[in-house]
């Protein structure tokens, strides 16, 4: 196992970079970060639309979210892979294909987190903001959303973990993220598949477990702070 790591660690971490495109664990992380970063504003808009008092906004967005949540990510990736080029009129490489699929998929899940967050803020907050004369959108922007975003920090970290795991599906369209690289290493070594894939699993585990513990800590910390304030 040691010589495996010794020979392939750099390939595992960054792919062929700098002699070729960036790949490996670095690509996995970049995809996850960008995916969540772009998905967040979209999820915010969708989440607000989900609780909108106007049906013509609420219904189409709810339907879209239902469809995405009822579809496997792999399916979304396939659609992006086969139809993004005809939509944009140019060849889309694997990176952008995967990023697009991730953003659409994550936005639907974030929207549900945000919807739950908005509904978790008591009705009294909206009512008192409206009573002061704020419009619906101002009440959302100035009073409700700042609270929602603060409360959802742990959920965001958990969604980041989910996104890291989701990037592994880039494998199927030949994206050189870390699972794909592991398979490349496996075909080169040929004799140690169990070790290669255990190392892959271990890598994901360290990353994701660390982050989920962080989310757990955030949640506890947040709860304690709210409790302390309530008792003050």
């Amino acid at each position, binding site marked *: 196992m040691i010589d495996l790591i010794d020979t392939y660690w750099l390939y595992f971490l960054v792919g062929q970079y700098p002699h070729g495109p960036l790949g490996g664990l670095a690509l996995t992380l970049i995809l996850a970060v960008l995916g969540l970063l772009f998905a967040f504003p979209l999820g915010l808009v969708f989440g607000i639309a989900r609780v909108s008092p106007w049906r013509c906004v609420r219904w189409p967005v709810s339907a879209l979210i239902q469809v995405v949540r009822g579809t*496997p990510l792999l399916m979304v990736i396939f659609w992006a892979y086969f139809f993004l080029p005809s939509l944009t009129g140019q060849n889309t490489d694997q990176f952008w294909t995967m990023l697009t699929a991730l953003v659409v998929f994550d936005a639907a899940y974030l929207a549900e987190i945000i919807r739950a967050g908005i509904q978790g803020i008591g009705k009294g907050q909206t009512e008192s903001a409206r009573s002061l004369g704020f419009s619906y959108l101002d009440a959302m922007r100035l009073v409700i959303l700042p609270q929602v975003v603060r409360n959802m920090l742990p959920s965001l970290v958990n969604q980041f973990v989910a996104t890291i795991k989701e990037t*592994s599906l880039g494998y*199927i369209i030949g994206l050189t993220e870390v699972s794909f690289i592991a398979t490349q290493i496996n075909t080169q070594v040929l004799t140690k598949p169990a070790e*290669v894939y255990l190392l892959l699993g271990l890598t994901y585990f360290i990353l994701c*477990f660390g982050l989920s513990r962080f989310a757990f800590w955030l949640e506890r910390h947040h709860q304690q702070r709210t409790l302390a304030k309530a008792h003050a």
Partner: protein
Amino acid sequence: MTPLFDLDLLLTGTYHDWLVAGLITSLSLTGISLALALPLAILIALIRLSPVKVLQWSGFAFVEAIRNVPLLAHMLFWYFGAPELLPTALREWLYARNIEATSAIIALTLYTAAYMSEDVRSGIRSIPGQQFEAARALGFSFVASMRLVVLPQALRVTIPPLISQTLNLWKDTSIATVIGVAELMYQAAKVESASFRSFEAFAFASACYLGMSLLITGAAGWYQGRFPVRAA
């Protein structure tokens, strides 16, 4: 001249047969994995709730080790890695049979069980400790108290999240494509490459995934309406 959307291709002929076979495989994967995962999940939940520290800890380690690694990496490990660890005779025996489906089912079962065990555990914990104490005070053993008093109550809290895990399982079967299980996604890709009718093939697969997802979501809604959680 070929039509814009060739419905006939989906309704009759070889391609139709391929796709339907894929759908049946996906449903079987879901059914078998669910049947195996449920008892395993309950077992893990009980282990995590047992008074023995070592058991608690190993349950925790199992759940976290599985949840923090993408399903794709699990599949790759069970398909490429694990057989190598087996004695040669057993391995040959396995390879002569359906090793793809077997690895997929193992991965899906473990992955689903890890998530489900968390739902079962929080379901059990939602039942106040006095219920358990009251049962013990009447003379029931630990196991009998769980089986007769705590579990029936916990079921109502637990079934809805378990149904939503089943939805995840259904969508996750698509990942078995990666190791060559001839399920729905795999067959859709096969039809695509044989006929170049990518739109029809993926539309069929998407419709199947979505339809089944809606059924499962509907079941969750029905259950919550039929068996609301009652407080004493």
